[in-house]
């Protein structure tokens, strides 16, 4: 297939999937919360997201007069670009990957680090107190959680001996990494929650405290980019969990691509369930949890894995 066509298909496929994730979240969360959720537009409310997109695209492109206009517009684009770019290295099935980079994992980490800029700049450029507080929180949180997110993945890299995501999946033919790398999985999952700024790590946008945090001043399509970016982010983290710890496309009976989608959807639902059940910690508790518990845990996992790999190699 023509690589350009493939890339375009991938981007639209992911956006379509993210829209589907929005539907899943709204319906599933409603189920958890004894409500119906959107069930009027199309069968089972499936077309609701499309209706919302049409609505949001036809809204006024409003920039608050007190905002830093250029940065204000660029900020939401950054998140879309970085999150979508990360998908370039994720193998959706044998041979179905935009670019099997040798350093695929590093590329993913680099892109997720860049995403911090989006939130920080949005909070800063809005020139509003709530947005500023949200932006500051976001930077503190994401920088802290990024550290051990990277470390938690090194166990997988040590076991595989490669940064390539395809190689990592191939290495799981005998045993999925969620068993030997269980600690790494837990740490990465939590860091992933923080990366996507979901409850219980939604402090940057904490509705009950900061109104909407860093995107308080955003509306229309610029807001939609943050909103869609969040769901593309959830899809990204879910598929990364599947790739790194749950054997990617590997699995019996079903076609590989379908396996990948089913596994990813499973983690999307787990994300939704967590959102439906947990409260939000305070900022200092959040940072304390990260540095005092998650960080040592990730380090210990790295040292232990390194030791075992070294011992087995001899």
């Amino acid at each position, binding site marked *: 297939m023509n690589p350009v066509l493939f890339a375009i298909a991938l981007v639209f496929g992911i956006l379509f999937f993210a829209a589907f994730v929005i539907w899943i979240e709204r319906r599933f969360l409603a189920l*958890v*919360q004894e*409500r119906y959720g959107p069930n009027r537009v199309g069968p089972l409310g499936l077309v609701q997201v499309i209706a919302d997109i049409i609505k949001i695209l036809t809204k006024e492109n409003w920039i608050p007069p007190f905002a830093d206009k250029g940065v204000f517009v660029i900020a939401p684009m950054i998140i879309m670009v970085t999150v979508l770019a990360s998908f370039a290295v994720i193998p959706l099935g044998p041979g179905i990957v935009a670019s099997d980079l040798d350093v695929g994992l590093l590329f993913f980490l680099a892109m997720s680090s860049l995403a911090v800029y989006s939130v920080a700049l949005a909070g800063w450029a809005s020139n509003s107190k709530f947005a500023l*507080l949200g932006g500051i929180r976001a930077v503190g949180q994401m920088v802290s959680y990024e550290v051990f997110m990277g470390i938690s993945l090194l166990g997988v890299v040590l076991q595989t001996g490669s940064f390539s995501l395809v190689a990592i999946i191939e290495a799981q033919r005998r045993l999925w990494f969620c068993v030997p790398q269980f600690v790494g999985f837990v740490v990465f999952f939590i860091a992933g929650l923080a990366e996507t700024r979901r409850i*219980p790590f939604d402090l940057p946008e904490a509705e009950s*405290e900061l109104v909407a945090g860093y995107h308080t001043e955003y509306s229309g399509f610029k807001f939609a980019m943050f909103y869609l970016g969040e769901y593309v982010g959830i899809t990204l983290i879910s598929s990364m969990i599947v790739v790194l710890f749950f054997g990617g496309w590997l699995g019996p009976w079903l076609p590989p691509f379908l396996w990948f989608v089913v596994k990813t959807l499973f983690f999307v639902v787990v994300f939704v369930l967590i959102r439906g059940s947990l*409260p*939000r910690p305070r*900022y200092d*508790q959040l940072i304390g949890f990260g540095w005092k518990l998650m960080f040592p845990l990730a380090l210990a996992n790295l040292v232990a894995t390194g030791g075992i790999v070294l011992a087995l190699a001899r």
Partner: protein
Amino acid sequence: MAEHSEVLRELEGRFGTGTIQVQETKDGMPTAWVSSEQLREVLGHLKTSSGGSYPLLYDLTAIDERNRKHREGQPPSDFTVVYQLQSFERNEELRIKVALQGERPSAPSVTGIWKNANFYEREVYDMFGLGFEGHPNLSRILMPPWWEGHPLRKEHPARGTELGPFVMDEAEQERQLEMLRFRPEDWGMKSQAEGHEYFFVNIGPQHPSAHGVLRVVAQMDGEVVVDLVPEIGFHHRGAEKMGERQSWHTFIPYTDRIDYLAGSMNNFPYLLSVEKLAGIEVPPRGKVIRILMAELFRVISHLVYYGTFSQDVGQMSPVFYMFNDREKGFDIVEAITGGRMHPGWFRIGGVAMDLPEGWDSMVRGFIKYMRRRLKDYDAAIMRNRLFQARTKGIGALSLDEAIEWGATGHFLRACGLEWDLRKKRPYGGYETFEFDIPTASHGDSYDRLLIHVEEMHQSLRIMEQCLANMPAGPYKSDHPLAVPPRKDGTMQDIETLINHFLGVSWGPVIPAGEASVTVEATKGNNSYYLVSDGGTTSYRTRIRTPCFAHVQMTPVMSRGLTISDLVVILGSVDYVLADVDR
């Protein structure tokens, strides 16, 4: 003067006879007039005296006496400032009055004695135009700063149509907006300290966690709240002024909307006061129906508190569960009364109608259902470690602080004081019910929630007893002043016909006098202080609501904590802005 209560005799003994003048009231509360020179001395003595002190300033209000006819045995006064004090040791309340003469007289401020007098004195200034010498910031509190006149003065019009047409041009809008601007200096705050600048965050009146139109201005140092100014009045409807215009009967539905989450519970103190003035005794069935409705509304109101509190802490789902439960409660309210949130169901002398067929199975089903749900919520919220980490130790108050700031209800119980008026001073038939008073010991946000949860269990218990022991008989008194009056004898004797005609056309004429009854409402103690001048409307309706005092306390609880904690504290107070502003 042998029948004087103990405290008044003690006062006379200390300050000498002649300094205080005793007044008889319909509610039997000891009431004494004190000169304004001696006021501070007397109140200070009452607050601190050993052996039966009155540590809590329960209410501070005023009466415009200039048009009042029935003032037998009272000293001459144009404006009377009324202080209502509460003693826990004596289990008694005390009313102290100060007579003021002139068009815009002043009284000494008691903010030096009780901290919570601050808001109350501002309210009296705002409503009556009275001054308070020594008040730190005597400014308008409920009315907007550009308002002309003082609404509760008798010469102030009561209807919008009497005020002339409303005009708002751009210049006026600018002027009003400018007046709303927050100036830290007005509140004794600095915008800068050594080496750094504070920034001020305006939270509300439109904010997801303001729970209504509360405006809180926080002085922030990073994420830390240095100081706080709560600003109220955005929800003011002039309920007390309406009380002077509506007949005794037609004011009932207005009371429903004071604490709009607690529906019938609001009718309770109002009608108990009216019945005290009129000398009406409610028949047993009427009493139990009232208690059933009041406790049902307590559960309904607490559910909203529980859900929104957990939402403030960041939990998304409980609020939906609890609104569903509340809906089940409203189903019962609807079956019994036909209304839902504001049924306006109590009547002078009883309730509006008898219970419908099948009410008992509905209530029984609700009790069973709620017990199961409350168990689930314990697991999801109360035992959730993240939730505990966010609420334990946050917004803690000592018992002394709580009393100093005029806190009542769950605040006192959360601080460990076993105090519930339903038990301590049973009203409206509560003496026949068995229930416990829950208490906690830390006085923090978590404990306040704990008290609410336990109260729901106790309310369900009371409702169960209502089910088991619903007396037979009439649901409304046949007293001639009960409304609507009885009709069965109207075709036989002229007396009943006249009573019925007057009661229906004018509304009942309640005998002159003063009465105030306090109830343990859902959010603290609520009372209606009614002054009748022997007419078809009340001469003065004072609504003492718990939330007014509690909102005033928020700065004490939140100083030095973060903005996230502030949200938790606001959630834990359990206030409703309609109840604060009236």
